[in-house]
Each structure stands twice: as structure tokens, then as C-alpha cells.
């Protein structure tokens, strides 16, 4: 049963990942990426790593992919121009990839993997909580890597702001200060005039 489930989800991962790079419409590509993430989180679940499965769905599908969709929809990407060099570079790219695949297959083929080479991890009891185990080591044993990861995120923020924040005087923007302090007289002008006579 578990094996069948694994093969179903693994096939879906591979198929949807292929679709991500082959479909023409970028919005569809992003949606296929969502499918890929869903199926890989299912594979995490099969491995009893429920925390990672949930995080994958919450963070990637919930947050990152939505941002991706925003970006894809906001940018007007000219796909025809992006595809220009495709046929030109296809032959050499294909040769390199096929050679690499053959060489990797010959060197480390399936006989190097499998249950007789790597023992399957022991089953955990039903009360075993993956989340709890991760929580126990994340801030203790892995304190140092965890802190470095935090610094990397900080640097990412600094770098993103440094690269995008520029003063552009000609852009139009709203100043909340003025918006809040607006008076009735700024918005509405009372005009006194005599009633028009019907002609």
C-alpha cells in the first residue's frame, strides 16, 4: 500500500515538475509548481516527517507561491524573447545533459542503492512526534547553524532593500500625513449661486 502511494506521488512530482518548465503560460507554471510541492509534502508524510510536510505546504504553497503569482502577474514577461536562444542552444545542451545522465547512470546506477545497501529506519510508535523531536534539537544541538540562517535572512532583507530602494522624485505617491490632516475645505468647495431659471 505504502509503495503504491509512493509511486503515485512520485510520478505526480516528476510530471508536474516537467510541466512547470514546459507550459507556455507562466501562471500555469506556478500552479504546477504548487502541485509539485503538494505531492512532495505527501512524500514527506510517508517518511513520517509530518512537520516538514506541513511546513512545506504552509510556507511554500501558502506564502511563497502566492508571492510568485503576484510577481508573475504584475510583470509583463515577453516569453517570445526569452525563447529566442532556445533552439540555438538546444543541441549542445541536449548533448551535455544526455552525456551527463549516461555517465551518472553508469557510475552510480541502481545497484548502489536499495534496502540491502542502506537499511530502512526503524518504525516509530504512534505517539512519536516529529515536531517535538525537531524542536528539541533545533535550539540546542543546531543552535549555531540556526543563528547563521537567521543572519542570512537579515542580509537578504538588507540586500533587497539596498538594491531596490531609490529616491525617485518623479514618482507619484501618497503622503498619509497630508491625507490625515485634510480639511473639509480642501475637498469640498461651497459655491453660492442663484437658482437657474427654466428657459
Amino acid at each position: 500500500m505504502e509503495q503504491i502511494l509512493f509511486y503515485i506521488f512520485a510520478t505526480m512530482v516528476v510530471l508536474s515538475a516537467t510541466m512547470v518548465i514546459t507550459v507556455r503560460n507562466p501562471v500555469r507554471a506556478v500552479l504546477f509548481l504548487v502541485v509539485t510541492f503538494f505531492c512532495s509534502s505527501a512524500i514527506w508524510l510517508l517518511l513520517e516527517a509530518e512537520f516538514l510536510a506541513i511546513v512545506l505546504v504552509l510556507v511554500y504553497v501558502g506564502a511563497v507561491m502566492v508571492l510568485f503569482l503576484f510577481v508573475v502577474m504584475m510583470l509583463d514577461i515577453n516569453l517570445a524573447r526569452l525563447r529566442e536562444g532556445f533552439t540555438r542552444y538546444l543541441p549542445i545542451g541536449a548533448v551535455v545533459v544526455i552525456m551527463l545522465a549516461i555517465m551518472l547512470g553508469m557510475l552510480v546506477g541502481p545497484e548502489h542503492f536499495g534496502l540491502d545497501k542502506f537499511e530502512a529506519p526503524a518504525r516509530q510508535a504512534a505517539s512519536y512526534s516529529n515536531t517535538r523531536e525537531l524542536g528539541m534539537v533545533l535550539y540546542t544541538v543546531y543552535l549555531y547553524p540556526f543563528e547563521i540562517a537567521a543572519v542570512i535572512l537579515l542580509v537578504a532583507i538588507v540586500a533587497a532593500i539596498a538594491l531596490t530602494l531609490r529616491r525617485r522624485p518623479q514618482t507619484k505617491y501618497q503622503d498619509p500625513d497630508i491625507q490625515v490632516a485634510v480639511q473639509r475645505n480642501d475637498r469640498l468647495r461651497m459655491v453660492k449661486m442663484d437658482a437657474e431659471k427654466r428657459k
Partner: protein
Amino acid sequence: MNFPLPNFLPALPEIFLLTMACVVLLVDLFLTDRSRGATYILAMASLLGVCVLIALSFSHSRILTFSDTFVRDPMADALKMGIMIAAMVSFLYAKDYLREHGMFKGEFYILGLFGVLGMMILVSAHNFLTVYLGLELLSLCMYAMVAMQRDSAIASEAAMKYFVLGAIASGMLLYGMSILYGVTGTLDLGLINERLPNVQDKILLSFGMVFLIVGIAFKLGAVPFHMWVPDVYEGAPTAVTLYLAAAPKLAAFAMLMRLLVDGMASLHGQWQDILILLAVASMAIGNIIAIAQANLKRLLAYSAISHVGYLLLGVLTGTTEGYAASMFYALTYVLMTLGAFGMIMLMSRQGFEADRLEDFKGLNERSPWFAFIMMILMFSMAGVPPFLGFWAKLSVLQALVQSTGLLWLAITAVVFSIIGAFYYLRVIKMMYFDKAEDSSALIASNDMRVVLSANGLLVLGLGLYPGLLLAFCLATIVSP
């Protein structure tokens, strides 16, 4: 639950630098463009502080902490001091250049400080996780710094190339790490080295190792993973090129040592062959293509590639003398490259980059003193005695000759070094025997003049007493 609190003391320099970088980040927010100099002073003070902290607690043995993810040994301390000094010198050289080119912003120094933190983490890594995270921290800062000049198309192109190729290299590195983790069952470099002899599947082991070396070779800029080096060196603003050409080379050397020597010493026979290939290709391509360059930054990029080849020669011998010779070479190279890029920045002014070879024509008429400094640097890079570069090359070659069966490699290295001498000597010929196209005097602030002169004279002075630095390197490598 309770767990033993890790010993924070060995990581004090890192903690201090992180705190100071955050302080600089906050202080910079409240500064106006006119008082931006304060950011520079604070950044320099933080680096100096780290330097003092390391010097005060210079280690004599190997200390592991944070569940063995962090290691502090004499080699780490020596390299960290080198990184601090290189970063301080590059900040100092960069100051005037950044002002003249309208790039004097706090972000340069903040990203620079975080990059230095990444290098320190990399130097002290004792676990695949810390190696990878330190590398990413360093690379992320460098990508952003290269891209900082937003209006320059060539800088954006360089940043894009650097980013994409860097991401691929990180992917390769991670793939290799995951294979090795699968085979050995641990991420700890010390444990990996212990378990390697017991691994049954040797093919899978070398398979993982190859990917690991690809990642390292990319970060070092060794042929055939050198494509990004010339474009990034040329495209980035010279101040950034200086930063990423100097200190990160020491970090990349440390990464090589940590992964191959600390982590896979018992596989020496296998990684030696790969390193020989990388070294010969780097020396050949670097030295030969440099001859055709008209842009000095590009020329120095190819020269960097060839120097990486020489640096690899020492490590691949697998002996303590070889490691020390490579470390000596790395320190020497950083000292020379700081001076060479410093000269480009000294000559440049507003709207003028001074990065073509012709710009150095007749430098002797314009400023005999700095022509002399540049001559020292070029002679040293070419490996002419009695300058420091000669002793660095000599110690690497000595290590090669002493180990069995590598004599041919030493001879190859000498041949390529003679080819390389051509383009260094051409710069000297242009400075002394060609007529100046531009006769304006050099304008530079006094601190830059003093430090650049000291930089050049140090290359000469240490060359006259070559034993000092080499003995220091040997002492730091031997002790563990």
C-alpha cells in the same frame, strides 16, 4: 528538558562582529549623507575590535564547541586575522573611490561586514551545515555588492552571472554533501573522516566527493569553473572587485582545507588527482589568456585564476609543509592583490576608471613613487626574487618536489609561471618606457597614500625576510 550550554567563548569574535554589524546597520539609518563617514569609522572599528579579540585569545590547540559545529584552531585564528586586515585595507582603499562615484552608502560597509562574518564562519566550520551556511552568507553579500551600482548595465550583468552560476555551484556542493551524508550518516567533518575507511561503497563516496570539489573549485575560481571570474571582476565597481578578490580567497582556502583535509584526509589519493587536473588547467588557461587582455581588471582576474592553480599545488601534496606553503601563498596573494587593485583605485577619479592597461602608460613621469610600488607588486606577482611572490611560489614548488612523483608538476608550474611573467612585465614596461597619455597628477587622500605605500613595501620587506611568514604558517598548521 536540560542540555549542556555550549561554550560561547571561542566564538566571541564572531558574536562581537555580528553585534557590531547590527549596531552599524541601526546607526546608519539615522545618518545623513554628509555624516556617512561615521559608518565607515564604525565598520573599521568593528573589524579592528575583532582583530584585537582574536589576537588576545590566539588559540594553541583545537577547540570544538556548539555541538562540534564550530572549530577554533591556530589556522582559523591566523586566517581570520588575515581576513580582518584584508577587509580593513579594502574598506580604506574603497572610501575615496566610493565617494567619487556616488556610491558612498552605508550598505557597502554593512554588507561588507556581514560578508566578513560569513568568511569567519566558513573558516571555523566543522560541519557540512556550517560550511554551507557560511558560504551562502558570504555569497549573498557579494552578489548584492556587485549589483549595487544599479545604473551600470555591465555591473548588473556581472551580478546576474555571478548569482546564477553561484546558485548552480551551491547546488552541486549540496548534492555532494547529501551523498556523503547518505554514505557516512553524519554531517560532522571529524566523524566523516573517522567513518570513511569503513564505508563499503567506495564509488558512491568518490561520486559525492567530486561534486564537493566542483563546489569548492567554483568558489576558488579554478578552471574549468572560472567563467564568472573575469566578468565579475570587470563588471563590478572596482571597490567591490577589491573586496571580493582579496579576503574571500582566504575563506575559500579554509573551505578547501576543512572539507578535504579535515573531512576527507583518508581519501587523499583520490582528490589529489582531481586537484592536479584543476591546478594544471588553471595555471595554463589563467596565464595564457591573461596575455590577450587589455583591461587591467580582467588581466588581474585571469592572474587570480592562475594563482589559484599554484595555491592548489601545495594542498594536493597532502603534507603539512604543502598545506603551510598553500596558506603562505594565499596570504601573499591577498597582500599583492590588495595593492594592485589599490593602484587602480588610486589612479581612478570621477568619471574615469583607470582600468585599461594604457592608463598606466608613463606612470613613472606622473608619480615615480607609485610607479615603484606598482613595480614591486607586478614583480612579486610574476614571482621575481627577492619579492614575496617569489618565496610563495618557491615554497609551493618545494613541497611538490619533496613529495614523490610530483616533480613533473613542479616543472609544469615553472613553465607556466614564465609565460605569466610576460604580462606582468608588460605593465612595468608601460609604466617606465612609454609616454604618458594623460599627465595630470595623482590625487589621493593621505591615508590611502600611506597604506598603499606600506602595502607595497610590505611585499618587498617580507620578501627580504621570507622565513617570517612561512614559519608562522607552518606553526599554525602543524599544531592540531
